């Protein structure tokens, strides 16, 4: 326990409480905060768009190789993020498998863009959403959906009014975890999207850069990330550690 807590104490101990606000409102810190917000919310949006349908397929559709697909889905959770970044470069980079075609056909290049940073964060964070949502779908009682259908509700109406409310807690937890993971993403982002203030330099990158130039700013930004992580954990506490 001490092993886990001491680093946090170290951070708190060195925090420049007196001028914390000043450190966090420097242009570079504000830029990083704003960009982190945009990128992490963007990553959550991408994850919802792609992840919820995927969770549905994994939970509801029987098909050969489903376990393999599920393993693949969670791969980026355990993959070292920098490896994810290299893989993204080889896929969506200007010379990449898909990226080459994107560049030629539409003139779209993702590396070094905010969209690229969002993509990198979504790549790493989406599994959290998929796993949580799939678990929610499996746990719910499908008879409610059947009942809705017998009462004449269409598929979309059933999804909106019956399924969604039933899986809302799992979906919410998934969104929170996905967002927290996206907010903290470093390795894939710096590898795939590079580092440019205001465009791809999110908070973790800013912490890393600031560490080499301005320790106080690095600590202040780290503290923000720590507080956010704690807030997410506390909000999910009842799901994970139910108080009997």
């Amino acid at each position, binding site marked *: 326990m001490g092993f886990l807590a001491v680093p946090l104490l170290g951070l708190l101990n060195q925090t420049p409480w007196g001028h914390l606000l000043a450190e966090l409102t420097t242009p570079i810190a504000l830029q990083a905060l704003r960009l982190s917000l945009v990128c992490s919310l963007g990553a959550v949006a991408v994850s919802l768009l792609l992840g919820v349908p995927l969770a549905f397929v994994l939970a509801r559709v029987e098909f050969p190789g489903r376990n393999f697909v599920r393993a693949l889905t969670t791969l980026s959770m355990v993959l070292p993020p920098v490896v994810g970044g290299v893989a993204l470069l080889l896929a969506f980079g200007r010379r990449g498998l898909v990226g080459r075609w994107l560049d030629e056909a539409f003139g779209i290049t993702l590396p070094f863009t905010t969209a690229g940073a969002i993509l990198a964060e979504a790549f790493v964070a989406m599994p959290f959403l998929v796993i949580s949502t799939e678990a929610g779908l499996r746990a719910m009682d499908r008879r409610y959906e059947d009942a809705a259908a017998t009462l004449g509700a269409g598929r979309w109406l059933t999804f909106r009014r019956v399924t969604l409310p039933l899986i809302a807690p799992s979906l919410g937890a998934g969104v929170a975890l996905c967002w927290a993971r996206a907010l903290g993403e470093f390795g894939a982002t710096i590898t795939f999207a*590079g580092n440019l203030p205001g465009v791809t330099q999110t908070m973790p990158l800013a912490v890393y850069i600031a560490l080499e130039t301005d320790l106080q700013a690095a600590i202040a930004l780290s503290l923000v990330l720590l507080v956010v992580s704690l807030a997410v954990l506390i909000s999910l506490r009842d799901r994970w550690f139910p108080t009997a």
Partner: protein
Amino acid sequence: MLRSRIRVAAALAVAALVLAACGGSDDNTSSGGSSASPAEIKVFAAASLTAAFTKIGEDFTAANGGTKVTLNFAGSQALATQIQQAAPADVFASADITNMDKVKDLAGPPQIFASNQLQIVVEKGNPKGVKGLDDLANPDLKVVLAAPDVPVGKYSQQALEKAGVTVKPVSQEQDVKAVVSKVLLGEADAGIVYTTDVAAGGDKVEGVDIPEDQNVVATYPIATVKASKAPDQAQAFMDYVLSDQGQQVLKSYGFGPPPTS
């Protein structure tokens, strides 16, 4: 079925990690026997010195009864921070004087041991037809520079100022090798690096010369770190870099001699 396979894979992964950890601790115990003669020194060196110092390290080990040289390459600004945070360095070789100054209370008197110059790195064949610094202002060109705190980033900025060119880079990399690799991967069209890094980049990249009046001379200082547990070997390594043999190796990798001024 799958689950059992995953379990086997996990067990293998854990075993591999344990083995790797054992290997690591063996190293530690052997170097922990401090007074034993085959000592070990840790040399923190600027990323641009990667190839040259790897060779110098091997030569030094051979010439000094097996004194092991462990090299840590990164942007000089990162190394300076590590030394400030009491990283166990014995020798520090920086690509600029600014970062050496940052640790001046922690290091012995520095000496300049090499110089370097800048070149524009482009893909082999120069597909975008880059002729000089002026061309880097072209907004259609994806240019990567090192971050302003990285020595080569600061030198690049000085050269661009001399040329009166404003460049909007697509990324600010953390060391010179990262700039080269972005060009090597084809993600960037051009970058500003040291001439030695263009040479080290292999046959997939080539350099575009920057004329003398726009170019900047990078000076490389080296110093021993005061907290070193092997100060004699650290001093010996520094002396070796400054010796004829060391200078010869640096020259063979394209470094210039210390500027005479």
